């Protein structure tokens, strides 16, 4: 796993990115209060690239992709910025055109497989309806292809499963069925929103393995949204870390794990138990909760939970930029970044 794998950072000049999120902001308006869930987020995904988005609940990582998919409620939500897919702005696209892209070009796998599947419609119909919507095919052919898809996604006895309802399947099987639906039309981009969070630990690994295999085989690009750095470590080419609606650090995977610079990323990595460290070394949890907040317009939003915060952190809109001692594809939004460690 060396530099050749990290196409994400250097490929920008060579070819057009598949998806470019450009200064995307999402504001929820509830009565008189406003919540900015996503605050000027930009990142891009190259064809075939796997991009990880890491953050805790409320960091805006899911809202970002829901916004680009046009799946946020129309009322009470304000979305600004641009999302270019193959050069086309998705946000200014009409509903009809967007619906055409969804499921065929850009597909999505959600977190909770039981609530994400319609309880009163057989699995087969739920897979086949994607095919019937986006391709010129007959009902019979779509059903036959669904069997094939379910089998490829590792569902045993797919002919029987086709007629069953979601409640008759196990959690892992349901998630596989959801993945089958997402991949039905061979999308160019697959967005996975915490696809393994609701699953048992043993099943998690299987599903991740399956996803990796499927996207690598077909050259599908993927955005993997997760709060689990373990998922990122095994899967992603490039990683964006989000906190309180903004990206705080962005780097190729190797670089990020080797030299985490933002104090939040640093804290995240320190809070993971590691087998390669001496026993008895205490874990370092991040103090406080995501509720200890301050807005980016006033200070670094992570400062209230940061052991290294000083008065200098209280300044509006700290920029996301490469540090003097970090590579250009590794921007950080931090006043007191962690030292580059060698070892």
């Amino acid at each position: 796993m060396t530099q050749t794998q990290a196409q994400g950072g250097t490929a920008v000049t060579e070819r057009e990115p598949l998806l470019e999120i450009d200064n995307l902001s999402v504001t929820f308006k509830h009565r008189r209060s406003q919540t900015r869930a996503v605050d000027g987020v930009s990142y891009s995904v190259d064809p075939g690239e796997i991009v990880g988005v890491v953050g805790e609940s409320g960091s805006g990582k899911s809202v970002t992709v829901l916004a680009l998919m046009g799946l946020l409620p129309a009322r009470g939500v304000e979305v600004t910025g641009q999302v270019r897919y193959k050069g086309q702005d998705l946000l200014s696209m009409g509903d009809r055109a967007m619906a055409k892209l969804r499921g065929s070009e850009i597909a999505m796998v959600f977190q909770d497989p039981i609530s994400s599947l319609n309880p009163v419609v057989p699995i087969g119909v739920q897979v086949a309806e994607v095919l019937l919507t986006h391709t010129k095919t007959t009902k019979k052919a779509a059903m036959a292809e669904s069997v094939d898809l379910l089998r490829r996604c590792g569902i045993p006895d797919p002919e029987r499963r086709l007629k069953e309802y979601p409640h008759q399947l196990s959690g892992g099987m349901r998630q596989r069925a959801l993945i089958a639906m997402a991949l039905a039309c061979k999308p160019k981009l697959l967005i996975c929103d915490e696809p393994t969070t609701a699953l048992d630990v043993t099943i998690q690994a299987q599903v991740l393995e399956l996803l990796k295999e499927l996207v690598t085989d077909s050259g599908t690009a993927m955005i993997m949204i997760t709060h689990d750095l373990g998922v990122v470590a095994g899967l992603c080419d490039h990683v964006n870390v989000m906190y309180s609606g903004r990206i705080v650090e962005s780097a190729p995977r190797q670089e990020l794990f080797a030299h985490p610079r933002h104090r939040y990323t640093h804290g995240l990595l320190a809070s993971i138990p590691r087998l390669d460290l001496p026993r008895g070394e205490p874990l370092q949890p991040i103090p406080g909760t995501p509720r200890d907040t301050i807005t980016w317009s006033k200070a670094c939003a992570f400062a209230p939970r940061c052991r290294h915060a000083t008065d200098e952190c209280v300044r509006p809109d700290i920029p996301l930029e490469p540090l003097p001692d970090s590579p250009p594809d590794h921007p950080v939004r931090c006043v007191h970044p962690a030292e580059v460690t060698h070892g």
Partner: protein
Amino acid sequence: MLRFAVRRILLMIPVLFGLSVLLFVWLRSLPGDPARALLGEKATPEAIARINEQYGFNQPLLQQYVTYVGQLIRGDFGNSPRTGEPVLETFMLRFPATVELAVAALLFAVVIGIPLGYLAAKRAGGILDTLTVSASLGGVVIPVFVLAYLLKVVFAVGLPGLKFLAVLPSSGRQTVTIDATHVTNFYVLDGLLTGEFDAAWDAILHLILPAIALGSIPLAIIVRMTRASVLDVLHEDYVRTARAKGLDPGLISRRHVLRNALLPVTTTIGLQTGALLSGAVLTESVFAFNGIGSYLFEAISNLDFAVLQGFIVFIALVYALVNLVVDLLYGLIDPRLRTR
């Protein structure tokens, strides 16, 4: 599925048993002695003696109860003291009219209620939604017979200056001058069966106003239930999945939203049968519609308890049956109940 059905039917037995006990206690606690209560104030001593003999009112209580249940099972609700006719016979003769009316009312409520509730939920907070919610509140707070009178005055009798609105018949099930053949006593059906289409049309015209009046309450309830249920479903993850799949909005509405949202609505419709039948008492009397409702209305006004008793048994049975059917139907449409 079969076991579910059998279990459900067996569950009805204790309910019917309990009902018979309640009815028996009720009959015994009516003012005066039971025979007089059944026969009314002006009963002759011979008639009272005959009723006492027939029902065994002079025997020990337990035996009386057994006799009473025996009679109920045979469908013998006694004779109406007013007309002297057996209650059951009159019921059977008049029941089709009420079924016709109730079905029309329910049809009206469902056909208008479900789409309206759905549209209101889709644009929750909009003008249509506000209007629908307000109107459905109005439907709940206006007494049924008041609405019935209002409809009758405006659309049948005619208000001064608004005579042109009065285009519908004001009472009865069919215009008397129409010489229609009656086979089943469902007048609309009869007209269609015998090919007397003008008779069927006439019967339909007579149904419109009573059906709207009677349907107003289930309409209000169905609208609100559908709206609430659709709102819930619209927030479900699987609807978001369906949208993420890029499905056609119509398909999302039909397959993913409505199919789930209508489950609780089905139960609500079943639970409306009772209210529908007692609403028929008021509506039928306003429109002089000869069903069991107006029969009961006359009975209540005359304190004719034999009819009231029969009516309660009858309604409880119909209610139990309808809800049984609804439960079975529910099992059919909700796979989670069907398979386990």
